[in-house]
C-alpha cells in the first residue's frame, strides 16, 4: 500500500550540506529566497571535514602567482580532459571565494603580516609548470572542518532552513524534463515528503563507497548521482576515480606517503621488495601511479598476500621503534586499530584505495545541469543545478590536483546558487504544477522494499558490488577484467533490484536507509564499469595495461579517438560522448602535450 506524501514548497531545495551545499545555500538565503537544505547527517559531519590539505587560490601572498598558471596546472593535471572554460572560471574566481570565506570568519593560518599563509602542494607550479608555488590556503590540518563551520554559521544567520537527518530519494521531473524538486524521507518518522521547488541543487558529494577499499566515510553513497541517473540524466566521465596507493586492506584508512619516506618497504607474498623491479631508482618512493600499478600487478599475478592473495604488505619492522613512534605515531595506532597488527613487529596489509570521484552529473560553469539535446550537446535542464564532487563541470577531467576539490565546491557552490538566484529573480513565477506521477518512482521503490520476499541481503549485495569494482575497475585496468566486470556488475544490479530488509519499522530504520543508498551506489558502479570498459586508452586516473606508450600516444593517451567526455545513460545502459571544451573564456587554449612532471 502506498504511503502518504506531504508536499512542502520552497523557492529552492539543496540536497547535501557539505561544502558545496552550504556555499550554494548562502547565496540563495542571502538573496531572500526561501531555501531548504536536506542532509542525512548534521552539516558539520559532512565528509568535507576530512579535507585537510587546503584550498588553492593564486593569492600570491608569499611569492608571485597568477590564476593563469593555476589554470595551466589544472588543465595539465586533468590530462586535458577538463573543460578549459570551466577551469579558467574556477581559477579566476578562486581569490574572491577564499577572501569571502575569510570574511565569513574562516580561521586561515596567517603570515606575520596578517595575510593568509600559503603552502606548496603537489602539481601546483609557477610560470606554467616551472617550479612549485605556494598556493594552498589552510587552517592547520582542519581546513574542511573550519570551512564547514564558517559557512554553517553564515547560513544560520541568513535563515536557511535545515532539514537534518532527511534523505532525498528521487528527483521530480515533469514531461518537459524540468526539475521541480525532490522526494525525501524524514528519518525520525519514516514519513515521505515532496520538496516542491523552483530550483533544485544537488551537492551530495562522491560515491567512493562503490569500492571495497575506499577512504570515503560511510555517508558517501552517491545519492545525488544515483537520483540523477534514475531521472534520465546521463553521468559524465564516471571511469575516472583517483586512488591512493596505500590504504589499509579491508578498511581503506590512508597510510601517508611519509611512511615510505621514512623507509617503509612494500613486499609481496614471497617477501620480495617488488618495487626494485618496477622502479629501480626510486623504488618504494616512485610516484603514486607507478606504485599503485606495481601493487596491482603483483596481486593480479598471484603474488598478493593473505588467504585471498588480495593485498601486499607495507613493512616498517626494520625501522627503529623510536623512529616509528616519534615520526609516525599515528601509523602505529592505525595499524593496530584497522589491520590488527603491531607495525613494530609485523607488516601492514595495504591496497590501492579509492579516494575521489572526478566524474558526475554534467554541468556548465554556471552550475546548471546540462545534457545533449536537439540543439546542442549542452542543453540546460531547467530548474536543476549541481556542484561539488557529485558534479562534473568538468574541472578535474581525468585527474584532480590536490586542494582543487575544496576550491571546486566553493566556486561552483557559489556559482550554482548565483545562477539560481538570477533565474528566479529574472522571471518571478509561481511554482509549476507537479505532474500526476511525481511520486511514483519513490513510492514504487519503497513498496518494493517493504514487500520483497526471498530477496537479496543488503550487506552481502553491497559487498559483492564493492569487491567487483575493486577487482575489475581498480586503479590499474585490464581489458579482460573490465569485460568480465561489466557482466558481473550487471548481475549485482539484479540483486540490488530485489534487496530485502527484515526490519520494516519506520523510525530511524538504518537497514532501510542502507538499502535505499545501495540503489544509488549501484547506478554509480554500473556507470563506472561500463564507461571504463569502453574507453580504450589511458588518461589521467584511467590506466589500462593494453594502451601502449608511443610518441603518438604518450602514456597510452589517444587524443585522436578519445579526447572526449563519456556520458552514461541508465536507460538502456548506453554510452554517448561529447567533445571537450578546449576554448577557455578569454585566454588561448592550453595546447595538448604529454603530461609529465
Amino acid at each position, binding site marked *: 500500500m502506498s504511503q502518504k506524501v506531504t508536499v512542502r514548497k520552497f523557492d529552492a531545495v539543496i540536497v547535501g550540506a557539505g561544502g558545496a551545499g552550504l556555499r550554494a545555500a548562502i547565496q540563495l538565503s542571502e538573496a531572500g529566497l526561501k531555501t531548504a537544505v536536506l542532509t542525512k547527517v548534521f552539516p558539520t559531519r559532512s565528509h568535507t571535514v576530512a579535507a585537510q590539505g587546503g584550498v588553492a587560490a593564486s593569492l600570491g601572498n608569499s611569492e608571485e602567482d597568477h590564476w593563469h598558471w593555476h589554470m595551466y596546472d589544472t588543465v595539465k593535471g586533468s590530462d586535458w580532459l577538463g573543460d578549459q572554460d570551466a577551469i579558467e572560471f574556477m581559477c579566476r574566481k578562486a581569490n574572491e571565494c577564499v577572501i569571502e570565506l575569510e570574511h565569513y570568519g574562516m580561521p586561515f593560518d596567517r603570515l606575520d603580516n596578517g595575510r593568509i599563509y600559503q603552502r606548496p602542494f603537489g602539481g601546483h607550479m609557477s610560470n606554467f609548470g616551472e617550479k612549485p608555488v605556494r598556493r594552498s590556503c589552510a587552517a592547520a590540518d582542519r581546513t574542511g572542518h573550519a570551512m564547514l563551520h564558517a559557512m554553517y554559521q553564515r547560513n544560520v544567520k541568513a535563515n536557511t532552513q535545515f532539514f537534518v537527518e532527511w534523505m532525498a530519494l528521487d528527483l521530480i521531473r515533469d514531461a518537459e524534463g524540468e526539475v521541480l524538486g525532490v522526494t525525501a524521507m524524514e528519518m525520525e518518522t519514516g514519513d515521505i515528503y515532496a520538496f516542491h521547488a523552483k530550483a533544485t541543487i544537488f551537492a551530495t558529494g562522491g560515491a567512493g563507497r562503490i569500492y571495497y577499499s575506499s577512504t570515503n566515510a560511510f*555517508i558517501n553513497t552517491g545519492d545525488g548521482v544515483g537520483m540523477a541517473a534514475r531521472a534520465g540524466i546521463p553521468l559524465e566521465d564516471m571511469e575516472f576515480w583517483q586512488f591512493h596507493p596505500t590504504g589499509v586492506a579491508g578498511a581503506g584508512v590512508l597510510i601517508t606517503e611519509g611512511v615510505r619516506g621514512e623507509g617503509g618497504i612494500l613486499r609481496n607474498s614471497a617477501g620480495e621488495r617488488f618495487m626494485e623491479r618496477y622502479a629501480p631508482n626510486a623504488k618504494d618512493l616512485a610516484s603514486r601511479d607507478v606504485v599503485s600499478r606495481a601493487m596491482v600487478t603483483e596481486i593480479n599475478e598471484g603474488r598478493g598476500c593473505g588467504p585471498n592473495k588480495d593485498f601486499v604488505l607495507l613493512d616498517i619492522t626494520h625501522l627503529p621503534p623510536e623512529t616509528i613512534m616519534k615520526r609516525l605515531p599515528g601509523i602505529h595506532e592505525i595499524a593496530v*586499530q*584497522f589491520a590488527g597488527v603491531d607495525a613494530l613487529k609485523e607488516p601492514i596489509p595495504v591496497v590501492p584505495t579509492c579516494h575521489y570521484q572526478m566524474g558526475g552529473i554534467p554541468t556548465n560553469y554556471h552550475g546548471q545541469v546540462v545534457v545533449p539535446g536537439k540543439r546542442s550537446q549542452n542543453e540546460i535542464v531547467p530548474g536543476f543545478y549541481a556542484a561539488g564532487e557529485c558534479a562534473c563541470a568538468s574541472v578535474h577531467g581525468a585527474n584532480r590536483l590536490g586542494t582543487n576539490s575544496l576550491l571546486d565546491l566553493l566556486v561552483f557552490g557559489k556559482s550554482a546558487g548565483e545562477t539560481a538566484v538570477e533565474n528566479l529573480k529574472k522571471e518571478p513565477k509561481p511554482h509549476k504544477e507537479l505532474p500526476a506521477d511525481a511520486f511514483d518512482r519513490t513510492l514504487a521503490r519503497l513498496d518494493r522494499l517493504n514487500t520483497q520476499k526471498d530477496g537479496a541481503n543488503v550487506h552481502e549485495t553491497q559487498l559483492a558490488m564493492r569487491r567487483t569494482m575493486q577487482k575489475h575497475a581498480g586503479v590499474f585496468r585490464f581489458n579482460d577484467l573490465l569485460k568480465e566486470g561489466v557482466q558481473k556488475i550487471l548481475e549485482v544490479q539484479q540483486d540490488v533490484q530485489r534487496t530485502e530488509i527484515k526490519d520494516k519499522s519506520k523510525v530511524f530504520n538504518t537497514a532501510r536507509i542502507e538499502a535505499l543508498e545501495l540503489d544509488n551506489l549501484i547506478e554509480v558502479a554500473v556507470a563506472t564499469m561500463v564507461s571504463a570498459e569502453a574507453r580504450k586508452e589511458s588518461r589521467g586516473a584511467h590506466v589500462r595495461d593494453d594502451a601502449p606508450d608511443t610518441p603518438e600516444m604518450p602514456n597510452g593517451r589517444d587524443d585522436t579517438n578519445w579526447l572526449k567526455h563519456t556520458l552514461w545513460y541508465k536507460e538502456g545502459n548506453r554510452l554517448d560522448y561529447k567533445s571537450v571544451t578546449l576554448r577557455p573564456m578569454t585566454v588561448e587554449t592550453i595546447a595538448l602535450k604529454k603530461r609529465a612532471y
Partner: protein
Amino acid sequence: MTKEPQRIRTEKLRWHSRRALLENDLVLQRFWQTQPEVLEERLAERLERLLAMEDHDLWELLSGRQRSADPEVQQLVELLRQPAVQ
C-alpha cells in the same frame, strides 16, 4: 522507561554513528557488531555524549592521542579502542 523508546534511542544512536571521517565510522561499526539490538540505558547515555563531539576531536580520543575529561566517556572510549584483533 519502556522498551520501545530505548529501542528508538538505540536506532538513533546507530545512525549518529555515521561520521564525517572513515576512521570513526570503522571504530563505531566494530562497536555495534558487539552490541545487543537495544543498548543498555547507561551505555546509550554515554554514547550520546561521545557522539556529540566533532569528528576530529572524536578521533583524537579513539586513536588514544587525547583522553576525555569525562571519566565515563573515557571508559567508553577504552571499550571502543579494543583493537580488531587481540
